[in-house]
């Protein structure tokens, strides 16, 4: 598996797990969990700066707790509900990373959300923002509904990767519609098998990650599944194993599903059955 590398735009990775940095109890737990997950990409959000004197982060910025030589920082546009705000947020994120010794300024995970209750992506806004940011030179990773038609439109608009959701953000419902993920993968990888597809959002536990990888996703992005677990560092290790298990199973080719049993033990040489009692 050490040679099982893959590309996302101009980036190349071995680890197929992307991990978010939100909702940890402390920076210490976050750092330990990221390390245990063996991820190479971590996501961050752009938010208003709060002065240390006002109880904010100025003296203790998240970037001071991320090893910039180890992780590629992937800024997201979380919290944006219009294409315009997502574009502004992406540019602010790029500016924050420029001048730091990290490649993250090149790319962005675009989220244009439609609704506060579901946090589902606004497909029209996502497409608009993708086009605009591609024109502005970004490598765009587009957080998307698990809709194969939208996925294809996003790729056509120049998205570097499409990130279909497993289920709503933070819901822990796993991959709700594996058939749609299958179709997304089929459409996006048609004549372009190396096009990266990352399943993003909804992961509740390790098996959800494995299922996404078994379907043929190139990677999985998750946050709450680790950060919200009772033992985040241990769960991060579980997620690292789950990625490996799913990837290996996908590469190995699963057996087809059949309605009836097929014996695993030889059917020849079975001892003579006793007379049946009625």
């Amino acid at each position, binding site marked *: 598996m050490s040679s099982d590398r893959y590309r996302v735009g101009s980036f190349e990775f071995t680890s197929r797990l992307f991990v978010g940095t939100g909702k940890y109890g402390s920076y210490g737990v976050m750092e330990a969990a990221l390390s245990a997950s063996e991820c190479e990409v971590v996501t961050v959000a752009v*938010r208003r700066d709060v002065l240390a004197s006002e109880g904010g982060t100025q003296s203790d910025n998240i970037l001071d707790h991320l090893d910039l030589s180890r992780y590629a920082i992937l800024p997201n546009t979380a919290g944006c509900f219009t294409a315009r705000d997502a574009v502004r947020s992406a540019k602010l994120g790029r500016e924050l990373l420029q001048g730091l010794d990290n490649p993250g300024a090149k790319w962005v995970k675009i989220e244009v959300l439609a609704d506060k209750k579901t946090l589902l992506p606004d497909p029209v806004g996502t497409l608009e923002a993708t086009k605009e940011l591609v024109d502005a030179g970004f490598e765009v990773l587009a957080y998307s509904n698990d809709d194969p038609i939208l996925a294809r439109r996003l790729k056509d608009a120049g998205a570097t990767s499409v990130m279909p959701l497993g289920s709503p953000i933070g819901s822990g419902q796993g991959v709700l519609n594996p058939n749609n993920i299958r179709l997304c993968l089929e459409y996006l990888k048609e004549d372009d098998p190396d096009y990266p597809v990352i399943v993003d959002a909804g992961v509740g536990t390790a098996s959800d990650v494995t299922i996404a990888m078994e379907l043929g996703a190139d990677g999985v992005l998750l946050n709450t599944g680790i950060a919200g677990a009772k033992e985040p560092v241990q769960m991060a290790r579980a997620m690292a194993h789950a990625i490996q298990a799913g990837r290996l199973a996908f590469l190995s080719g699963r057996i087809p599903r059949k309605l009836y049993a097929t014996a695993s033990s030889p059917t020849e040489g079975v001892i003579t059955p006793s007379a049946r009692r009625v």
Partner: protein
Amino acid sequence: MYRPARQQTMQVTINSKMEALDGEMSVADLLARRKIEPIRVAVEINEDLVPRKTFAERMIRDGDRIEIVTFVGGG
């Protein structure tokens, strides 16, 4: 007519809060006054990004709507 060159007070909005700023200042001056490290923030004025390398030249004007942002944990 007489115009005091440096003592005018400007009304600006910083991260949605109305604030009065005394005298002329650049974005760099504003950050220094607030003890903000420029490398850790990005700044927008009236919804346009202000590149970090222009912080010292970009003067703040009366009525500007300023956003000062940084990175926080997120997924």
